[in-house]
C-alpha cells in the first residue's frame, strides 16, 4: 500500500473520485488533494508523496508543467507519475510522456482501471533506479 498519493486536478468531483477509488481499494492510505498546479507546487518541497496523479488540462499552469517540475525536484524526481486527461489530445499525451510521466490514463476511467494503472506505474518505477528517473 502506498502511504501518500498526490492528486492534482481542478475538478472537485475527479479528486473525490480518485480519493474514493484509491483509499477504498486499499491502494493508498491517504490521498492528498491539490486543486491547482500552483497548489501542487507549493506542496512539493514541503511534503513527501509516493506517487502523483496529474490532470493535464488545468486553468493555471497545466499538468505538463507540473510533471516537468516534479521530475526536476530532488525529492520527487523518481516517484511514479500518472497523467490523466480526456481522450483525443494525442499531442498532449506524447508531450506528457516525453516530460517524464510514466503512463497516461484517458478519462473516463473506472476505479478498477485507476487502481490497476497505479499498480502498473509503481511496479515499473520499482524496476528502475531512482537516479534514472528524470527525463
Amino acid at each position: 500500500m502506498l502511504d501518500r498519493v498526490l492528486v492534482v486536478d481542478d475538478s472537485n468531483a475527479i479528486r473525490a473520485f480518485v480519493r474514493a477509488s484509491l483509499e477504498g481499494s486499499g491502494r493508498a492510505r491517504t490521498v492528498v488533494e491539490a486543486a491547482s498546479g500552483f497548489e501542487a507546487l507549493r506542496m512539493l518541497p514541503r511534503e513527501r508523496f509516493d506517487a502523483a496523479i496529474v490532470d493535464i488540462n488545468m486553468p493555471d499552469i497545466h499538468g505538463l508543467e507540473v510533471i516537468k517540475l516534479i521530475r526536476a525536484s530532488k525529492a520527487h524526481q523518481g516517484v511514479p507519475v500518472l497523467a490523466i486527461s480526456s481522450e483525443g489530445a494525442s499531442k498532449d499525451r506524447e508531450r506528457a510522456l516525453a516530460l517524464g510521466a510514466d503512463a497516461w490514463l484517458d478519462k473516463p476511467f473506472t476505479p478498477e482501471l485507476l487502481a490497476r494503472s497505479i499498480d502498473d506505474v509503481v511496479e515499473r518505477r520499482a524496476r528502475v533506479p531512482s537516479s534514472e528517473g528524470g527525463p
Partner: protein
Amino acid sequence: MSDEADRVRDEFLAESQEIVESLSRDLLLLDHGQKHGRADPDLVNSVFRGVHTLKGIAGMFGYRELSETAHVLEDLLDHLRLGRVALAQSSLDVLFEGVEVLQRLLGAIRGESHEVDLASFRRGASGLVGQSAAPAADPLAAYDLDPSMLGVLTEYEEHRLRTNAEQRVPLYRVRVRFALSSIDTDLDALKARLKPAAEILTYLPSVEGSGDDAIELEVLLASSTPLAELRVLVGDSPVEPIPMREGPSRTMPPPPLGASPTGTIAGSIAPVLSRAPVSDEGRELVPSRDAGAEAIAVRAVAKTVRVDIAKLDHLMNVIGELGIVRSAVGRVLDRLGARADLRPISSELHRIHRSFERHLEALQDGVLDVRMVPLGQTFDRLARAVRQVAREHDKEVRLVVNGGDTEIDKLIVEELIDPMLHLIRNAVGHGIESREQRARMGKDPTGIIALNAYQKGNHVVIEVEDDGAGIDPQRVLARAVERHLVDLGAARELDDQAIKQLVFLPGFSTADQVTDLSGRGVGLDVVRTNIGRLGGVIDLHSTTGIGTKFTLTLPITLAILSALVMRVGSHTFAIPLTVVQEALFLEPRSIRVVDGRELITLRGQSLPVVRLTELFRLGEPTRQRGYVVVTSLGQRRLGIVVDALEGQQDIVTKPLGPSLQNVRGFAGATDLGDQRVVLVLDAPALLDEVLSSDPRVSAGAA
C-alpha cells in the same frame, strides 16, 4: 461506503451545476461581444475548458448522455477556439441550445423529469463542425523560438502561438519571479495589467530559477504594443524580444476570432454599456467576468465547503429548540423574580440569560446567512431564456437587471426558477410587441424587460416588468366569460384592475394563439400557487400600451420565523409576524357588511375581516370584543378577528404529517416550549382563499 458514494456523487452534481452556470454566463458574454464585433479568445477557451471538464466527470460517473452532449459541444468549441469555425450568431445558437440540453440532462439526473431533445442539438452542432476549414501551414519558422519550449505547450497554446505568428505579431519573453504563497493573485494581477496590450500565449515554470518558496515563470507574449510601453506594464522584470528570422514585422493586431470584420482580439470585452432607460441603477445583463474569476480563485485555495442544505435545516431546528429552552428559562426567571430572598441569584441568572440570548441570535443569524444566495445566478439563467425566446419570436429584447446581489434562502431560489421562467416567457412572447407594432406606436423597436430585486423588511421583492402592450381588460373579460370563470352580471361590476387579476384563475390562458413558448399548458394560476407555496404572493399591475409588471413578494427564509401567538376560544394559533402589519381592538359597532362580507374602516380605507371561528368552523361562540390582526402581503390586506393576543415568539415550523398535508390554511405546526403544540396559519393561502372567494365572482375561482 454508500455514504461515501453519495458524497462523491453530490460532489459531481454540484460541480456539474457550477460548470453549466458559468458556461451560461460566459456564453452571454460571448454573445454580447460578438454583437459588438469583439471576441475574446480567452473566453472561448474558458468555455471549452468548462465543457471539457464536464465531459470528463460525466464520463467518470457513468452519465453517458451528459458526457456525449458535452463531447459534441467540446468538439464545436475546439473548432471555434482553434479558428476552424467562425464565432457567429448561428454557432452561438447551437452553444446556447447545448447548455440548455446540459441543464435538462442534469435536471433528469437529479430526478426532476425533463424531456431532452438530443437529436436536434446534435444536428445543429455537426452541421457547423462539418463546414470547418483546413488549418493553415506552419508559420513558426519565422521566429527564433526555443524548441524545448514548444514541447510543453498544449495544443491550444500552440494554436494561439501560430495564429499570432501568421500575422507576424512580435513575440516577447519575460521572466518573472513569484513567491509561491501569493502566485495566484500576483499572476492574476499581471494578466489583468497585460490584457489590453498583449496576449499571454503561455507561462512556463523554469526549472533553474525556482526554489522551495519561489518560482520563476517564463511568460511568452504576443503584442503589437511598442516595447517601451510593454516594459512599463510588466514592471521590474526584463522584457526580451524574440528575434525574427526574416522580413520586417507588420504591426497589426492579431486576427479576430471568427468572421467578424471589425473585431480586435487584444481588446478585452469592455462592459461599458449604455444605461437602461428604465432605471438609473440599471445594468444590462452582461455578467461580470470578475465574479467568475473570483469563484475560481476561491475554489482553487479551497476555503469553501459545500454543505447539504438538509444539514442546515437540522442546525436550524436545533437553534429553534434552543430558542424554546431560552423561553423556558425566561419563565423560571419570572418566577424567581417574585422571590425577594433569591434576588441575587435571580439577577445573576438574568445576566446569563441575556448573554445566552445574544449568542443565540448571533448563531441564528450566522446559519441564516449561510443559507442565503444572491439572486444573480437565477437572473443569469433567465437572461439565457430571454435571449432564446426573443430569437424564436424574432423580437428584439434587452434585459435590464437591478439588485442581482439581493440574497434569499437557497431553497426558495430553487423553487423560484420555474415560475420566473414562465413570467419571462410571457413577457417576451405576449408582452413585448413585434418590431413593426412597436414602430407604429412610436416605441423603440427594442423592447425592454427589467428584473428588479430588493429587500423590503423581512421580504424580498422581485419585479418582472416589460414595456410591452399591457394587458387589455376587455380581452381578459371576454376570455373569462367565455371560459365561464366569471358570469356576465358580476363582471360588469369589476373595475379594470380587478379584471386583470382574472388572469390568475385556473383555466385562463392569456394568449389568443397558444404558442409553444409560453403556452406549455401551464397558466399563471400555477405560478401563483407555486409562489404561494413559498410563502409569497404575486401581484400584477398593467397599463395598456405602457407595459406590465408582476411583483413577487417572498419571505427571505423559510427556516425560522417570528410569530404572533393568538387565541380563539379554546384554540391557539400562531401567525408569522412578517405578514402582520398591526393589531387593533375590535370595536363591534365599526363592522359593516357589504356584499355579504364584513368590513371595517382603517384610516379611511376598507379592510375586509374574517373571523377564525367561522372560517375554521370551530363551533365556538363569537365573542363581541376581540382584536383584529391586520395582515398584508403584497398589495392585499385582510383583518383576522381573534379573541386574545398572547405575544410574540420565534418559532420553527414543522410540516404537518402526510395525512394532513392537503389541509389548506396551515403552514405547519410548532412547539411553543410550554408543552403546547399549535398550528401555524398559512397567511398567503388565507389571503387567497378569503379574498378570491369574492361573492361577486362565481365558484370557478375557488
